[in-house]
């Protein structure tokens, strides 16, 4: 610790150069932390999704509306245990910058499809009794400080049958999940929403389907799609795991590219940091020689230079990953992911450890050559400018 002022002084010698190098390392490790966090998040989502749920969507376009009458036909397919239609109201809560999605569904069917979705029996009963009732994920409830019985006003983006865009929902229950962070959806009664909306009436953007045997998910999916093969509203059915895999693979491919870019950035950074430390040592040749003159050993001077590289590299990397750990949950906490039942993503501990190892390697590779140069520095030659 007593040598810290010396190391700090060396880093402050050219503050602009040190800061620019820091920013480069921070940016690289911010990217590293964010992307690795997303990768781990995706893997976690995949591990927790089930093949026993089917998603029935329009073959034309995911999210395109289908007639609600499809629900009855889907329910009649052998192996199907429950069908929950989804039709969402999109709006803002309290302020325009606060988007929110409320999903209209058949809550009893939803609870049959998703066995992991836990709602106390009295609250599920209250949902049946209360037309404008909503059941809220515990994470969202905690985020807004909502309590049972609270009224949630929503300013919708589409006009209702009464000519207004305002909705008022009463909280009748809360649900939790095995992964509580992901309990972010807001469920309302399908009928209540369906009666009030002017567009998309009697329609659903997708059906969430429970089946009795996950091993038969492919066959049941095919049977469902076959039911609507000659209909103007053809369907595309897959199990939830396959659906997410297909969707996330696209992100995965992007990640592959971005990981390549991050790798290239880190590789370039190696040269940048090496150059910064090497240049700093070259400029301080006389100063390092003075330290040796005053009694610092060759090894001592070498460690001082290496410590500079370690502090610069690892300190900046820590800032970059810390920034990623703040930004990633914030970026992924929007309504798009939460309405999918996926909570915000976090930078996991493994990524911190990986970042520490990468930063250590970066610092060592860039710091060792100038440190050795400092170690070999001849006092007499350095002081005489040779």
């Amino acid at each position: 610790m007593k040598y810290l002022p010396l190391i700090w002084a060396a880093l402050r010698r050219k503050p602009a150069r040190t800061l620019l190098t820091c920013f480069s390392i921070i940016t690289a490790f911010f990217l590293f932390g964010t992307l690795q966090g997303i990768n781990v998040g995706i893997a976690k989502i995949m591990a927790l999704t089930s093949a026993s749920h089917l998603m029935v969507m329009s073959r034309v376009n995911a999210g395109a509306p289908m007639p609600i009458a499809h629900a009855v036909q889907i329910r009649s397919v052998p192996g199907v245990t429950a069908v929950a239609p989804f039709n969402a109201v999109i709006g803002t809560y309290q302020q325009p910058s606060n988007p929110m999605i409320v999903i209209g569904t058949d809550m009893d069917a939803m609870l049959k499809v998703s066995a992991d979705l836990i709602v106390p029996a009295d609250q599920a009963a209250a949902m049946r009794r209360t037309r404008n009732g909503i059941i809220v994920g515990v994470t969202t409830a905690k985020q807004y400080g909502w309590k049972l019985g609270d009224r949630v006003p929503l300013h919708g983006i589409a006009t209702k049958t009464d000519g207004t865009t305002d909705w008022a929902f009463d909280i009748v229950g809360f649900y939790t999940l095995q992964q509580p962070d992901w309990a972010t959806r807001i469920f309302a009664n399908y009928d209540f929403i369906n009666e009030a909306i002017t567009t998309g009436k009697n329609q659903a953007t997708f059906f969430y389907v429970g089946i009795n045997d996950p091993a038969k998910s492919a066959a049941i999916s095919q049977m469902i799609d076959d039911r609507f093969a000659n209909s103007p509203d053809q369907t595309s059915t897959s199990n939830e795991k396959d659906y997410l895999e297909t969707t996330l693979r696209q992100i995965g491919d992007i990640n592959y590219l971005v990981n390549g870019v991050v790798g290239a950035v880190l590789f370039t950074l190696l040269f940048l940091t090496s150059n910064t430390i090497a240049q700093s040592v070259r400029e301080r040749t006389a100063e390092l020689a003075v330290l040796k003159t005053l009694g610092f050993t060759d090894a001592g001077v070498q460690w001082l230079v290496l410590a500079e590289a370690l502090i610069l590299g690892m300190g900046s990397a820590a800032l970059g990953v810390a920034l990623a750990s703040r930004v990633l949950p914030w970026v992924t906490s929007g309504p798009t992911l939460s309405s999918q039942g996926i909570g915000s993503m976090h930078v996991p501990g493994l990524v911190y450890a990986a970042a520490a190892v990468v930063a250590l390697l970066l610092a060592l590779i860039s710091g060792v050559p100038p440190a050795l140069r400092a170690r070999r520095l001849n006092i007499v030659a350095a002081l005489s400018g040779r």
Partner: protein
Amino acid sequence: MAAVVSIQNVVKSYTRGRQRVEVLHSLNLEVQSGEFLGLMGPSGSGKTTLLNLIGGLDKPDEGQITVAGERLDKLSGSQMAAWRARHVGFVFQFYNLLPVLSAERNVEVPLLLTKLSRAQRKSNVAAALALVGLSDRASHKPTELSGGQQQRVAIARALIADPTLLVCDEPTGDLDRESAEEILQLLTILNQKQGKTIVMVTHDPRAAAYATRLLHMDKGTLARDESRTAA
């Protein structure tokens, strides 16, 4: 008086390009404890080489050098570094202070190698800066000090570990007349009042006049040895 420096048959040469140039030829010298030795001579006469050998910055090719009771020609690199920290204080022509450190931090640097606590180091630094008359400039960086003040900081740094020997290479070479006089008077006080043995290389006859003994070097040998009364 005991000899602080004892040099016997020392030969030192350097390689310049493809040529090997012998700078010191079988040199013999003794410096007694408490002496203020001035080394004079034309450029290339071997003054700085001799100073570097005495200060343990370099090793002879042949011969023996004993300084403060230690055979320097026998020490390893790390032993030599530890020996320098204990026994020698260096004062350079261009001060060689660390530019981003304050005066007190510069003076503290040699103490970082000791086991003194932070409080003890701080107290010793304050005493050294008071000795050179720079207590009020402790927090100033070298660029905020005049040449004379920077050299005083360098002297405080050289004294901080209470060395046996002060080695000064042209300590007034970069200073105006008035500052040079102040530095030389300070060195004289250190020599006379604190009994510090000083070896000083200089080109300036007025600086040399402060030495109690003057050695003239020429072509790698001692040409003349004058004992004298300091100015």
